[in-house]
Structures are given as structure tokens and as C-alpha cells.
């Protein structure tokens, strides 16, 4: 009836996951109860859960990423403590638990923190920057988000029901094969990534189509903001790379479920084929993450320097170069497999070549600051912190791209330090910069600057105190994923890294405090202009938060930095020319398709993990039926009458005009 599932799946003997699970469960139930008692449920259902508005979906993506950041972060804290105490002892985590934690940490941080964070920001901002009313496929967008949430949910369920993979975040066979990992851990891993991978793929298709097909009048390719370019590049990579991940995991699942031999030791399976395939996805993946961050920094540096981006065309070229070359370097993840020197040298050099466009980007940001008038608001702090940190990560990255150096550093703590250097220093700093920068646009009030700056400094310093010691440990031969060790030379570095983790934690607490304080002071922090940073691109041309239709009129773009242009023209022509004529606007209707589909996907995923076949069929049929019902619906749009559009837009213009005249009076 319930497949492999029985009471022994609950780890009653392990207090840590049980207590953690119980706390989370209580928190979820508490929030749910509060929502129901306060009567917010209909609002949530109507305005958020079934919403197909790209802004709402973007916000939900970022919310999911933030919650999962706390989960992945607690894994990190546990790992740092374990390695600090497990010198000549077992520490406090037995191997089967520790191995799950580092596997879950990697999986969560990449798939359920970094990915949803950047996809959320792209969703929120790209249509606004392009001057359009929504993404190309609004309902699909909702489906994509909810499938990602399904994956995150399944990973968290594994905390208390069964186990998570103990194989590392890429689940290399043969360790991840049934013979060496007979538990459900790898199945949790693979199915949650399969389901969320579908979500990511549709998000990618959606954003590529949006950028290519939905641009406002005059917004030709070389007038798009840099963030739209990096979004395009990143999503092209998603569309090209994620099917590889899906196929690879499908083959692994066939091995595990149906006795196939793609990656087994026996019967002609080849484990190195998995290595090649997973990195053929995995290397583009790091650029999928970091390219949008580059875009965010381009926007931030230009806005806060009060200058257009230096060398815009050069930046476009660099972005697309990274997009293409990132597909040609995957082998540098396993120079040590014993391939010939020609293979290693060619992939090593190809990997270094990526450093060229990346270096160009750094210099272009540098020269954007040159001659600027730099305001050090929180987003700009993150940007400067990123530039310094990322260069160091780039240096160590090029270093491990030199095969003979990699022969010493592969899989070491040095490598761990390197990729955290670029992922934290690049992607996470970028996500935080984007969060601070666009928060006023999404919610209509700014974030508290004092807490924001405190969060930056603690995170910035905490990063160095945590990861410089890992570089040092790597130079002392320490390899990654050690549950305990007897080498005295490593110990001091592990202790320092644990202290650094504490500083990082303070940074995260500051970030939470910032949110709390800002929400409490939201009236004082209210942004009535829609343009709190003196921005340059079109997202600042509309109110904060934008109306559901974003723009009453499709903006007319006449150059780069479209909104900056408009502001200058408005100054010259005086604000408020003749009142425009408003038209009805068609907007897509909200739809529960995404949520219902994800509900069935969750059931199906859980049932597949536990071999509950009737439930698999039920979930599959349910998801399919949802799609059929959606495909058959007659009315997929509703009309916002011109009068309503006029009312909203006039109120917005009125408010801005008042502010301008007040400023003029002063």
C-alpha cells in the first residue's frame, strides 16, 4: 500500500533532524493558522498563489530563495562546527548525518537559493525594463515557480521522512547507484531536481521568449539594459543546459529503478559518462547564476555612479562570449581522471579564456565609476565588495584551470574556498544588491540603510574570515567532505573558519532585522516617486509598486538608458504635456494551474521516491488533467477598462508632479 514507507523512515534515533523538522512544522502550522484565523487565506489565494503577474511570481521566487537560504545556511553552520570539533574525534555528527548535510547544503544553495533568487529578480524586473506588461507565458511562469517550490518541499521532507542523499550535491555514480546507496536519499535528490528542473526550464523558455519577442517600441537589442542582456544569456544557457541535467538524472533513475546500466560499474556502464554529462550542465550552470548577477551589478554601478555604463557594447559582447564559451570547458572539473595532456591543456586554456570577458566586465565597471558621482547606498556597497572579492575568486579559478596546479588542488578545501568565493562573492552579493536595489520597486518603500550596511559589512568580513582559512587548509592538503580528521595542521584553520561562520551569521541576522525594521517604518521609508535611486532604466518610470499592467502606455524608447533619457527630455520640455488618451488593457487572468499542478507533482514525486505506484499514477493523472483543463479554458484574459487605467495612472502622475513641484518650491 505505501511502498517502502513505514515508521522506520522517521529518524526517531536522531534528535537533530527531528527537532529541526518539528520546529519547522510548528512554524508552518503557526503561520497557516494565523493566515486562516486572520482571514487572509482568500487574499493569499487570489492575489499570490494563483497570481500570474510576473512581479508577484518574482517576489515569491525571492521569498522561497530566502527561506531556503536559512535552511542551507544552517547546514553550513553545522558543517563548520563539525569540522571545528571533529579533530581526532567523531565530532557531534555521525558520518551518515554529516554526509547528508553537505549534500543537502550544496543542492539547496544552488538549486533552491541561487536559482530562485536570480530567476525571481529576472521575473520581477525584466518585463519592467523592457517596458512591457507581462512575460511571454504568464501561466507557465506560475507553473515554473510552483514546480521549483515542489522540489524545495521534497528536499525538506527528506529531513524527517527517510534521508537525503549522502553522495555530495552531484550524486556521482557508482556511489549514487542502488548497490552503494540503497536508501531513498538519492531518490529524493533526483526527483526533487527533476521536478524543479522542469520548473527552471519553463522559466528559461519564458524569459528567453520575453526578451526576444516582447520589447516596447524602440527597445532594440542594443538599447536593452545590461540586466536584460545577461538575462537573455543566462536563460539561453538554461534552455540549452537543463535538458542535459534532466536526461542525466533520468538515466541515473533508470539505473536505480529499472536496472539499467548507464552508469553502473557492471555491464558496460560508464561512470565517467555521468561525470561528463553532469558537468556539461554543471559548468554552464555557474554562468546561469553569475551572469544575472553581473547584470545587476551593471545596473547598480551605473545608477549609483550617476553615469551610463562604460563600454556598453563591449559588455554585451563579453556577456555573449561567456554564454558561448561556458559550454566548452566542462572537462576542467575532472582533469584528474587521467585524460591525455592535449585534452587537459585544451580545456584548461578554454577555461582561462572565459576570464577574458569576465575581466573586461570588471574593468568596464571600474571605468563606469571613473568620473562618476558615487553614492554609497547599500546596493553600491555590495557591488564594490563584489568587485574586490570576485577578482580574488577569479584568480583562484584561473589557477585551478591550470591542469598541473589542479592536480594538487582538485577536490581540496582550496577548491571549496574558490567556488564559495565566486558564488558568495558573485551570485549572493549580486542577489543581495538586487534585493536592496529593487525592493522599493516591488513594495513601494525603501529598506533601512543602517541595517543594510551592517549586513553588508558583517557578510563581507565574515566571508573572508570563513573562506581564507579554507584556502590555507587546501594548501595543507586538506580534502573536502571530511567528517573527521587527525591532522593537527588543519585544526587552527577550521577553528578560524567556524568563527567566520559566526560573523556571517550576524550578517544574515542583520539582513532579517533590516527587513523587520523597514516594514515597521514603511511609512517613513515610502517611495512615492517610483524612482528612489535616480534610476536610468524603464522599471523606474512606473510607480512603486507598479500597477498590475506595469505601464499605462508602452514607453517609447529612443536610446540606451531609456528612463534617463525621458527624464532629461521632460526637464527640457517641462513636465506634464497634454493628457494622453487611455485605452482598455487586456491582462492575463489568474490561474490556479501552477499551484494545482505542483500539488500533484509533489504527490507524484513523493510516491516515486517511496515506490507507492498507485499514488504515482494518481499524481501523474492529476497533473495531466490540470493541464488539459487549463488548455480547454475559454477566457484567459480580462479587461481593465480605460477609465480604471486612467484613474491609476493619473493618481501616479499627480503624486509625482506634486513631489516635483514641492522640490521646486524648496
Amino acid at each position, binding site marked *: 500500500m505505501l511502498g517502502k514507507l513505514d515508521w522506520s523512515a522517521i529518524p526517531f*534515533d536522531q534528535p537533530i533532524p527531528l527537532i529541526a523538522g518539528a520546529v519547522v512544522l510548528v512554524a508552518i502550522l503557526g503561520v497557516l493558522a494565523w493566515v486562516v484565523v486572520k482571514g487572509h487565506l482568500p487574499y493569499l489565494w487570489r492575489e499570490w498563489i494563483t497570481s500570474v503577474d510576473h512581479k508577484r511570481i518574482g517576489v515569491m521566487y525571492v521569498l522561497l530563495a530566502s527561506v531556503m537560504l536559512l535552511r542551507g545556511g544552517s547546514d553550513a553552520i553545522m558543517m563548520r562546527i563539525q569540522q571545528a570539533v571533529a579533530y581526532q574525534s567523531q565530532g557531534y555528527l555521525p558520518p551518515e548525518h554529516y554526509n547528508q548535510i553537505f549534500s543537502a547544503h550544496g543542492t539547496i544553495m544552488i538549486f533552491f537559493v541561487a536559482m530562485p533568487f536570480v530567476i525571481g529578480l529576472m521575473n520581477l524586473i525584466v518585463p519592467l525594463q523592457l517596458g512591457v506588461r507581462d512575460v511571454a507565458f504568464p501561466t507557465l511562469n506560475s507553473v515554473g515557480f510552483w514546480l521549483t517550490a515542489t522540489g524545495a518541499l521534497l528536499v525538506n521532507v527528506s529531513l524527517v521522512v527517510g534521508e537525503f542523499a549522502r553522495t555530495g550535491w552531484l550524486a556521482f555514480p557508482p556511489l549514487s547507484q542502488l548497490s552503494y546507496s540503497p*536508501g531513498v536519499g538519492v531518490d529524493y535528490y533526483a526527483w526533487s531536481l527533476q521536478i524543479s528542473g522542469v520548473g527552471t526550464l519553463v522559466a528559461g523558455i519564458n524569459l528567453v521568449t520575453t526578451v526576444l519577442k516582447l520589447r516596447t517600441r524602440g527597445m532594440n537589442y542594443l538599447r536593452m539594459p545590461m540586466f536584460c542582456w545577461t538575462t537573455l544569456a543566462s536563460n539561453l544557457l538554461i534552455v540549452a543546459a537543463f535538458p542535459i541535467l534532466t536526461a542525466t538524472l533520468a538515466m541515473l533513475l533508470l539505473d536505480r529503478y529499472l536496472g539499467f546500466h548507464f552508469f553502473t560499474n557492471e555491464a558496460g556502464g560508464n561512470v565517467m559518462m555521468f561525470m561528463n554529462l553532469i558537468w556539461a550542465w554543471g559548468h554552464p550552470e555557474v554562468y546561469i547564476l553569475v551572469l544575472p548577477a553581473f547584470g545587476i551589478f551593471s545596473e547598480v554601478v551605473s545608477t549609483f555612479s550617476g553615469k551610463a555604463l*562604460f563600454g556598453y557594447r563591449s559588455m554585451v559582447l563579453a556577456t555573449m562570449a561567456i554564454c558561448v564559451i561556458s559550454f566548452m570547458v566542462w572537462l576542467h572539473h575532472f582533469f584528474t581522471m587521467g585524460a591525455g595532456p592535449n585534452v*587537459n591543456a585544451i580545456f584548461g586554456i578554454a577555461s582561462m579564456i572565459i576570464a577574458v570577458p569576465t575581466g573586461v566586465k570588471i574593468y568596464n565597471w*571600474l571605468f563606469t565609476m571613473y568620473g562618476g558621482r558615487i553614492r554609497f547606498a547599500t546596493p553600491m556597497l555590495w557591488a564594490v565588495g563584489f568587485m574586490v572579492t570576485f577578482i580574488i575568486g577569479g584568480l583562484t579559478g584561473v*589557477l585551478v584551470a591550470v591542469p598541473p596546479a589542479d592536480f594538487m588542488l582538485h577536490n581540496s578545501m582550496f577548491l571549496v574556498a574558490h567556488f564559495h568565493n565566486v558564488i558568495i562573492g558573485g551570485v549572493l552579493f549580486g542577489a543581495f544588491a538586487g534585493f536592496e536595489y529593487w525592493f522599493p520597486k516591488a513594495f513601494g518603500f525603501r529598506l533601512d540603510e543602517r541595517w543594510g550596511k551592517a549586513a553588508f559589512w558583517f557578510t563581507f568580513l565574515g566571508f573572508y574570515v570563513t573562506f581564507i582559512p579554507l584556502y590555507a587548509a587546501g594548501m595543507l592538503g586538506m*580534502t573536502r567532505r*571530511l567528517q573527521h580528521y587527525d591532522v593537527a595542521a588543519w585544526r587552527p584553520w577550521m577553528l578560524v573558519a567556524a568563527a567566520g561562520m559566526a560573523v556571517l551569521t550576524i550578517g544574515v541576522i542583520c539582513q532579517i532585522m533590516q527587513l523587520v525594521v523597514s516594514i515597521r517604518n514603511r511609512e517613513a521609508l515610502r517611495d512615492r516617486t517610483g524612482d528612489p535611486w535616480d534610476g536610468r532604466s524603464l522599471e523606474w518610470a512606473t510607480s512603486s509598486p507598479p500597477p498590475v499592467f506595469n505601464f499605462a502606455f508602452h514607453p517609447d524608447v529612443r536610446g540606451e538608458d531609456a528612463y534617463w533619457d525621458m527624464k532629461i527630455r521632460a526637464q527640457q520640455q517641462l513636465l506634464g504635456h497634454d493628457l494622453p488618451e487611455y485605452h482598455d488593457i487586456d491582462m492575463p487572468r489568474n490561474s490556479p494551474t501552477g499551484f494545482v499542478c505542483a500539488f500533484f507533482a509533489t504527490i507524484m514525486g513523493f510516491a516515486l521516491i517511496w515506490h507507492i505506484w498507485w499514488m504515482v499514477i494518481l499524481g501523474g493523472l492529476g497533473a495531466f488533467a490540470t493541464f488539459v483543463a487549463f488548455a480547454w479554458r475559454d477566457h484567459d484574459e480580462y479587461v481593465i477598462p480605460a477609465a480604471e487605467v486612467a484613474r491609476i495612472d493619473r493618481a501616479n502622475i499627480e503624486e509625482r508632479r506634486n513631489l516635483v513641484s514641492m522640490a521646486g518650491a524648496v
Partner: protein
Amino acid sequence: MLRPAHCARLALAVQEPFSGDRVCCRSFLALGSVRGFPTAIGPPMNLLDPQGPVAAANSTILVDSVFIMLVIVVPTIIAILAFAFWFRASNPKARFQPGFVYSGRVEMVVWAIPALTVILLGGVAWIGSHQLDPAAPVPGTGSPVRIQAVSLDWKWLFIYPDQRIATVNALTVPAGAELNFQLTSSSVMNTFFIPQLGSMIYTMNGMVTRLNLRADNEGKLQGLSAHFSGDGFPDMMFDVNVISPLAFPDWVANTAKTDAVLNEESYTKLMQQGVERGRPVYRLADPRLFDLIATQHIPPGPGPEFTSGAGRPHSGGHDAR
């Protein structure tokens, strides 16, 4: 949660207690100083303190590459901080140049700097990859020593086919001789790595990788697995004893006196999952044993026993300490 079957296997794994070997290892290591970290005790693994030509070449390339890049990186970081500071909005002396958004000359320089750096480093990578190909010979004095390394769950087996002996978790080699390694795995992937001798390499079931090394100085080194392989992975550390070439034949002769014989049967017993705390040695019954493993005539090692339907298997990775 310890299950009976699991306990039994654990007992098997630790039946050989800590030998004098380990004590002697400690006292030796207290003498060994780690460059740059003089207070450190324990097995030296400092990558910047190479004990053989391969590691020396690796670490030279490592250090050179870092310096080549620092030449670019340090000025860039200084420029970032300097520009950010000087062009702050509150500095009235800084000239605001909103029109400075393109300069062909600057563009050429910013593409040229990283490109030239990469061309230089690319040369280093190309030459280094060829000279330091793991399979390339590393000439040494005396006749080369052939060693066949097999990663087991979770210990290292070193077979000396020419000497007809085998050791577990302890590799003894003569100083100055070329060491020809052939490597494979009994089950999951591992990486063979002796940090101070250089160049790690994967071990994979059904495949053989090649690695040539040389140890130049007598003494004790530490080796490890550098690819996660399951619960007992942290205990896959192994001793490397570099002894004088004159003492090597004696060591071989002494080792060969053991009663334990490594053949298909005892190998199959050895490859069961478990941690090995001692340093057992064997006489090698069949010098073709490695080929039998690598060609899968001996099937791959089994995984953990699947003791419950609950999806939470227990393997022998627990440490008994």
C-alpha cells in the same frame, strides 16, 4: 543505531589494534617541520613543501601562476578601491564626467590585459600539462618500482607485483626510484593523492589509470583519498614510508615473511565495507590479481547491507573510537 550485523563487521575491521607503527609515526612527525607552519604537528601535507620532482613542478607552476595573476589583480583591486573612494559624491575635487562612457583606447587596453595574461598562462598550462602528464615517466635512480593501487571501501590496497607482496593503508617506497602506479577501484570512485609527491589521480572500477611519481627524501609522508566515497571516507588516509633504496629489499624480504596471503578469496574479504585501523601486509599469491580486479573478473565490491525497508541503510562507516 548499531545493528548486530554492522557491529560484527566493525569488530572485524578493527581487530588489528593500533600497532607500534602508529606510535613511531607520531614521534617521527613531531620532528618533521612544516614550512610556514612550524608549530604544526601531524603528518606533513604542505603543498608548498614538495618531496619529489612532480610535486615540486606542480607547486612551482602553482606559485608562478599566482604571481603572474597578482601582477594584474593587485593593481586592479587598488584601482577599484581608489576610484570608488575618489569619485564619492561627497568629494568636491573629483571631476564629474558623465559623458565618459566609451573610449576606444581604454577598451583596447581592458581587452588586452586579461587576454595577454591568459596567453601567458595558457602557455604555462600547455607546457605544464604535457610535462606533468601523470602518465609521463619520471626518471629516477635504480630500477623503477611497480605499484598497483586499489581503492577499497574504505582502505587502500597496494600491490607490489614484482616483489610479490601487498600492503594495506601503508605504502613503502625507496627514495629516488621511479614509482610506476597503476590504479583502479574495487567499487566506488576515489582519488589517490600524496600531497607532497604531487599529482592526484582518480581510481575507477573497471578502469586503470596511470601515475608516475618519485620521492626524493627518506621519511614519512601522508596520503589520502581526495574523492568522497561514502561513510568511511575520512579514514582513507594512508602512510607513505620513503626508505633508503638499500633498505627497500630488506623491507620486502621482511614483509614477504608474513603468513597472510592475498588471493581472490582474502581480497574478497578485504573489500567488504569497513575501516582498517591497522597496517596489514600480505604475500601476493597471484601477481595477476590487479588485472583480475581491473577487468572485473573479481566483481565490484558490495555496498552496505540493506537492513530495513525504511530507506536508511547502515554501513560500516562508524568509527569505533
